[in-house]
């Protein structure tokens, strides 16, 4: 929508955007630029380089790219985002929205309520809850499964944090898809069903083309959030032996535990670039879809 229906005018529009932009500029853009600068120095938490950091150019970047732990960490992060955000949250969120769409009454309210509750509970509280669930000696899960002493967080660290993040974040996708599914006319689904289309066929031919924009927005947001999510640190601390050390935890270890603030800042900038690639890929898909719609609207054959 680009029509200025309320007669806002350029001047007022700028005045409306300005306060938000000013705050973002001071507390987001400025620290980000500072981080980029720090990435070019040998700034440290303690010692000589803490008082008087020297510019070292691109050393931090070449160092990070050659560090096998960085590449392992990047691979773990991709598995974490793919497993917990794209397959887990988006998949489970869509399935729930699809199953619940036609239902009303207590079942729907209870399921939505419980899923949303896991999203709304404070992160610090949630950390303790999952600790109590997965603890090796006294965890509830081991008590239920009669597997005393099974160390979930040590034997399956990556799987544990993936399932944890599915639990934590599915609500957002569920809500977004529930809203999106309301844009699909029930009559179209009914027609497809009467024509004998199975559920996967209905989804492919009737539902997905209509909610593609929502799917892409959702995937973009949850991928970015999951990629930069530090919460798994509460559960595994990145261990054992770095087997759940996703990139935000890696940055924390390099910058704060090892005290190499400059290197940490450089890695943060690399993470930003990787996220940029993600975002551009999504935008590409989004734009491709818009062109398709225009062709369809013009009466041309669906590309």
């Amino acid at each position, binding site marked *: 929508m680009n029509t200025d*229906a309320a007669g*806002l005018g350029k001047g007022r529009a700028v005045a409306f955007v300005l306060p*938000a932009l000013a705050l973002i500029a001071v507390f987001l853009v400025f*620290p980000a630029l500072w981080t980029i600068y720090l990435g070019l120095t040998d700034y440290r938490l303690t010692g000589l380089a803490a008082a008087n950091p020297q510019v070292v150019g691109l050393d931090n970047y070449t160092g990070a790219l050659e560090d096998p732990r960085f590449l392992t960490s990047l691979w773990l992060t991709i598995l974490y985002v793919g497993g917990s955000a794209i397959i887990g949250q988006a998949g489970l969120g869509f399935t729930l929205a699809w199953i619940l769409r036609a239902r009303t009454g207590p079942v729907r309210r209870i399921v939505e309520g419980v899923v949303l*509750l896991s999203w709304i509970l404070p*992160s610090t509280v949630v950390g303790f809850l999952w600790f109590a669930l997965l603890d090796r000696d006294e965890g509830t899960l081991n008590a239920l499964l009669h597997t005393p002493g099974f160390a979930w967080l040590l034997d399956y660290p990556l799987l544990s944090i993936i399932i944890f993040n599915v639990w934590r974040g599915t609500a957002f996708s569920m809500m977004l898809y529930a809203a999106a599914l309301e844009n699909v006319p029930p009559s179209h689904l009914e027609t497809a069903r009467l024509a004998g289309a199975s559920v996967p066929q209905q989804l492919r031919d009737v539902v997905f083309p209509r909610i593609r924009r929502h799917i892409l927005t959702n995937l973009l947001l949850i991928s970015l959030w999951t990629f930069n999510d530090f919460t798994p640190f509460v559960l595994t601390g990145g261990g054992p032996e770095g087997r759940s050390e996703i990139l935000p935890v890696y940055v924390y270890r390099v910058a704060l535990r090892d005290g190499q603030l400059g290197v940490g800042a450089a890695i943060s900038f690399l*993470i930003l670039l990787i996220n940029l690639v993600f975002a551009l890929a999504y935008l590409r898909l989004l734009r491709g879809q818009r062109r398709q719609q225009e062709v369809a609207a013009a009466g041309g054959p669906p590309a």
Partner: protein
Amino acid sequence: MIRHVLGRLTATLFIAVTLAFFTLPMLWLASAPFDDTPTITTSIPEFTLRNFAAILDNPYALGSIRNSLIQGGGAAALVVALAALAAYALSRVRVPGRDALLYLLLLLSSVVTGTAAMVPIFELATRLDLIDTHLGVILVVTGGLLPAAIFILKDFMDETPTSYEESARVFGASPLQILRHIVIPLVRPGLATIAVWALASVWGGFLFQFILLRDPEKAPGSVILYTLYTEGGAPRLELISTFSLLYSLPVVAMYLFVSQRYGFRFHGGIKR
């Protein structure tokens, strides 16, 4: 017919498994606070309310919930107000490079709010004299939440029809009147959703609150929760579980209130 019954059965089974999956971790929060001798295992409690008396004796517990209310409420109000104005203007007036700018800010916010910009933010807050102030926490977390809030709200505003604004304009309403009497009521569910989302993020936030506040009198509950250990470093489960429950109640109450009153959803009030 058989296919229909099977589909129905699968759906019901799926709902049951999902419910179990989402409820299981929360059971501890319902049992341990009332247990005389809580352990990590979820069990039927030996009922007592003594843990609540014990947590109220902690000098910082109640005050920290008040601090969380100030910081979370302040940030949520600021996020909603600034994001709504910006999202409306961006939705209705064509600004060159608008989408690119939004995506870039969204990207920055998700990377920077992690551990990345911790040092610059600490130094910035020190120089602006914002250390140990509620305002410092509010401004820093608001800066991090705003891009996503504008992004989601703009989607929301794009979906609401402009015909109401057009007719109000025909009848001579000023842009500000239109905003107050037409646009805000239309997008109220969106504003409420963003408010709950912002409050819930700040409520559980730990990192920035931990760096920016030295004085335990000003610390929010999410930081105080990590102080409930014995001198030997063992977690005091009776205090941790009880405080976790108390600390969760305000956000849950706010969510229930908002979803009752405005609906909790991600789309416009009126269909085109």
